[in-house]
């Protein structure tokens, strides 16, 4: 190994996830020879500047934005390690051109997110928030506008059937659902047969599911993927759940579907803009559960994210190809090859 390996940690970690960050640094990086780290002052998760990034071999990114301008004349940087699986705030082609690897943490994320989705499914099905409100206000079950319903035999659908979608189906397998549906252009029927998932087109999924969940990345193909017309296909008794990314869904269409009772309700953890404006119509609706893009933020999620991100960074530090690589094409970029070779010293 040659030279000190410097890791920049985007400053939003210190406000949003300080405790797990300190835990992970102590557990995974403290005492590793030649590794140093320091806070990267981006100004609260804003776009990282090239001046900042030039001084590091690796960067831990939470919500930090990195675009082509951030990488201008950045030569030392070898890896951006995101804690999490979404990378919509990062310009991947620009990273690749600059010879920088991007890694994510799929193993850490899938179970906490799948459990968050199940939490919303069961809370919606049992009308739990209205039950809680009625009980707190001195009412009783006769005051409930709607009773809970049973999960037994219902159809669970997932838009996207990758890391998280498959984990959701795996955990849901013994919960009594009757049928699993998914749509995903990248996943074959053969790949998910064993999970009992039927791959269908998106229209069929919306038409036949009792719970439609969104488990896709946000990219140019998925932006606005779920539109008003899809909500029109849903059963009036069905629920819509989005814990992935707000812009995957046409928000006005969702609002209209809920307001006009095309669907029974929704569980929403993500929004077109975060934090959402105070006048988001969802906040005035009884048939919606809202959460602050944090439903999956268990302590385990953050520490597992951190461990997985550290493993990726340490692999690069040793001159090895990291796990969780988003842009494998970087392996063919000479600048990246040179950085790895230099680490192998």
């Amino acid at each position, binding site marked *: 190994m040659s030279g000190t390996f410097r890791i920049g940690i985007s400053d939003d970690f210190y406000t*949003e*996830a300080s*405790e797990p960050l300190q835990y992970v640094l102590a557990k995974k990086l403290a005492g590793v020879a030649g590794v140093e780290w320091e806070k990267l002052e981006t100004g609260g998760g804003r776009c990282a500047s090239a001046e900042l990034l030039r001084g590091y071999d690796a960067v831990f990114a939470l919500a930090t934005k990195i675009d082509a301008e951030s990488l201008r004349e950045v030569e030392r940087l070898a890896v951006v390690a995101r804690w999490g699986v979404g990378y919509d705030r990062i310009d991947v082609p620009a990273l690749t051109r600059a010879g920088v690897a991007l890694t994510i943490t799929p193993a850490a994320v899938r*179970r*906490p997110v799948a*459990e*968050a989705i*199940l*939490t*919303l499914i*069961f*809370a919606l*099905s*049992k009308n*739990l*928030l209205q*039950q*809680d*409100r*009625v*009980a*707190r*206000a*001195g*009412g*009783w*079950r006769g*005051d*409930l506008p709607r*009773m*809970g*319903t*049973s*999960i*037994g035999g219902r159809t669970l659908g997932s838009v996207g059937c990758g890391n998280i979608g498959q984990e959701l189906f795996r*955990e*849901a*397998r*013994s*919960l*009594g659902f009757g049928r699993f549906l998914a749509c995903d252009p990248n996943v074959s029927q053969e790949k998910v047969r064993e999970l009992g998932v039927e791959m269908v087109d998106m229209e069929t999924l919306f038409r036949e599911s009792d719970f439609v969940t969104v488990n896709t990345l946000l990219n140019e193909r998925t932006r606005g993927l779920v539109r008003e017309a899809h909500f029109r296909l849903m059963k009036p008794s069905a629920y819509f759940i989005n814990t992935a990314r707000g812009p995957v869904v046409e928000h006005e269409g969702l609002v209209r579907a809920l307001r006009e009772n095309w669907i029974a309700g929704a569980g929403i953890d993500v929004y077109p803009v*975060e*934090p959402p404006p*105070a006048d988001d119509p969802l*906040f005035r609706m009884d048939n919606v*559960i*809202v*959460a*602050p893009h*944090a*439903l*999956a*933020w*268990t*302590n*385990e*999620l*953050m520490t597992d994210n951190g461990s997985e991100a550290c493993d990726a960074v340490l692999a690069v530090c040793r001159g090895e190809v990291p796990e969780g690589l988003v842009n494998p094409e970087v392996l063919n970029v000479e600048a990246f090859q040179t950085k790895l070779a230099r680490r192998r010293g």
Partner: protein
Amino acid sequence: MRVVAVPDDSPAVLGLSPSLARLRAEASVRYHDTLPGTADVLAERLRDAVAVVNIRSSTNLTREVLSHCPALKLVSIWGTGTDHVDLEAARELGIRVTNTPAVAAPSIAEHALALMLAVARRVPLLDRRVRAGEWPRGGMVQLQGKTLGVIGLGEIGRRFARLGEAIGMHVVTWTMHPKPELGFAHVALEELLAQSDVVSLHLRLSEQTRGFLDEARLRTMKPGAILVNTARGPLVDEPALLKALGEGRLAGAGLDVFDVEPLPVGHPLTAMENVVLSPHSAGITPEALEAGLAMAVDNVLAFFEGKARHVVA
């Protein structure tokens, strides 16, 4: 055709169910969607019926009423409670009484899971805060990999234990009558309380179990644990539970049942942020109601075939 009376389907449930048509296919049904009101009207509605499907517990099937029904051979109760039927008189008069046990078990087990998940992820609290313009972070509890202690392994307890396993929890159980054939790890009660991240009660309420989770036992629970109770309120020492929640010894509770129901206005639980409450509604789903109606009708049909089921007297 044999005469079956339905004297009290008000507000109508059987009348809206496909189960009524199944009954009509096998018997001449005297169906009433009003309450009888008086014993005389009730006796009139039951006159010459061989069986009665009893929908409401306000319908008192007293010795007097039963003895005015010489043809009556079966009372099929929709529900589990039998307080409104004179079982001794029924026995003496040669009348069988059946009920519909455990039909709500799947719904109640699911409700317990919903409460456990909602407490772990603070769902009602987050919802209130986001609506109020806040954007709170962190502090969620992950259940996968944690230990679930299930107390009582009747129909509901064992179903809930399976749901816990499905989401990746390590399940330990304690029951008064161990059932090794179910395949769950059975541990001593002290052990269960000390090691479980979530404790869920599925016991019957009796003089033996009243106050089961008392102050001393609550104190032996793992710090930061969650309590789920969908069984009966008086199984738990409620003031001691309030104290444990208030002091943060327990992280939270999901409760469908209480000492006093309906929960009185201004009860301390109603102001607590770390609890999720529901109005003793876990078993009331359309699916559970229909399963019960179907069983009440099946009990009549089985009796006609000489194979009485779910007999209580």
